[in-house]
């Protein structure tokens, strides 16, 4: 597991797995799309609009997963002064932003037929929007500072504060939502997905995750190189 912390071990390890990763993610994506668009049945209530779920839910999960990974890296980076952690931070931030944007767009596309409006101030939608805002700020800070070692520390602090703030916002938005208008009759219904729909969902999540890993590896390599030639 040393490759998670030190750059040249990371380079060695990723050189090995980069080739198979290309193949694997391509296959996974194709199979996932095939399954979700053709083979999986329509929903008993929504018909075929449910297929948006196969892109919406994985991107939401990945957006949160990437933010969580960035929080871990910034805590480790600040506490143990590991420069590689900040490199990873600057590398994966845009990927998380893209996934949150995908999640929001597909969410509102799905909301139009289901709820009748592009955007409804539902608890989840608002907190995902805030997550996008935090991501955008992180990317914005990344490009607005001049000194590198200054910039990465500020980004790390901001991620940590953001990670504390997100649960608070999630909680307060839920609360506000029930005060504002009752969001859902969650008391009565419990989410249950039928097996025939669960499989494509999992495959799609796996393919999204593989793509995310692939892109972040490439970006981290690029970040290491750009740091090296700036220094040498």
């Amino acid at each position: 597991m040393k490759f998670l912390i030190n750059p040249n071990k990371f380079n060695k390890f990723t050189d090995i797995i980069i080739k198979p990763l290309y193949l694997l993610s391509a296959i996974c994506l194709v199979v996932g799309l095939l399954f979700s668009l053709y083979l999986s049945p329509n929903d008993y209530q929504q018909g075929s609009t449910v297929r948006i779920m196969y892109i919406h839910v994985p991107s939401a999960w990945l957006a949160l997963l990437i933010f969580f990974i960035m929080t871990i890296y910034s805590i480790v980076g600040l506490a143990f002064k590991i420069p590689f952690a900040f490199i990873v931070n600057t590398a994966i931030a845009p990927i998380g932003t893209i996934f949150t944007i995908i999640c929001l767009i597909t969410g509102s596309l799905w909301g139009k037929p289901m709820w009748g409006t592009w955007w409804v101030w539902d608890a989840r939608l608002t907190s995902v929007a805030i997550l996008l805002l935090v991501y955008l700020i992180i990317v914005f800070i990344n490009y607005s500072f001049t000194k590198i070692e200054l910039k990465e520390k500020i980004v790390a602090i901001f991620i940590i504060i953001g990670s504390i703030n997100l649960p608070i916002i999630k909680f307060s938005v839920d609360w506000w939502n029930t005060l504002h208008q009752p969001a859902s009759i969650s008391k009565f219904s419990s989410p249950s997905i039928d097996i025939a729909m669960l499989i494509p969902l999992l495959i799609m999540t796996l393919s999204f995750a593989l793509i995310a890993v692939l892109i972040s590896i490439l970006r981290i390599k690029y970040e290491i190189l750009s740091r090296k030639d700036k220094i040498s």
Partner: protein
Amino acid sequence: MNTIQIIFSVFLKEYKINLRNFNNVLTFLFFFFISIFVFVFAIGPNKEILNHTGVGILWALLILSSTLSLKKYYQDDFENGSIIITHMSGLSYELISLIKVFSHFFFIQLPFLISLPIASILINLEIEKISLLLLSFFIGSFILSCLGSISSSMNLLNKNNFSLGSIIVMIFSIPVIIFSVGIVNSEENFLPLLKILTGIAFIFFAITPWVSAFCIKLALANK
């Protein structure tokens, strides 16, 4: 026991400085009232809408005008290095940022608190709601001061663009505004909301010294 004396003398210095340029606070208040007028003109004078949305507008404007006062938070002491001198007198940076938070709370947020009843008359809020508004603002303004400290200490590092600080304050004030407006609008059971707001205040109170101190040390190193 001379640390208490030192803390008191730093407070006295803050008090003198804020008293001497009290016109800054007046300009913030002036901005606050002008923007209330702007909103009232924008929304129109009928009681029903104002009554319903008034508190939200008031709170949003309070947050905006508190981001105005971020410029002077650490900037002056940091520029002329007197933050190093106070640190060398035996106060850790965390304690200095705490003193700054309290002095910002007393000298800049309290005038807002005093001006709130007048502002709420402008948006013809019911009388019994004003006391709730004052209570929620009392706690909310403390959170705003903490947020101000975090964002202005982050701004010390980045001379050119200053908007970053106010963005940070705005994002972190979302839970504050949700719960405080909730407190004012809730008819009878506002106690759970109040407890959550104080909870959030404690969280930010616990985080602020460490984050601001870290940013100050970073800024001093990379001056």
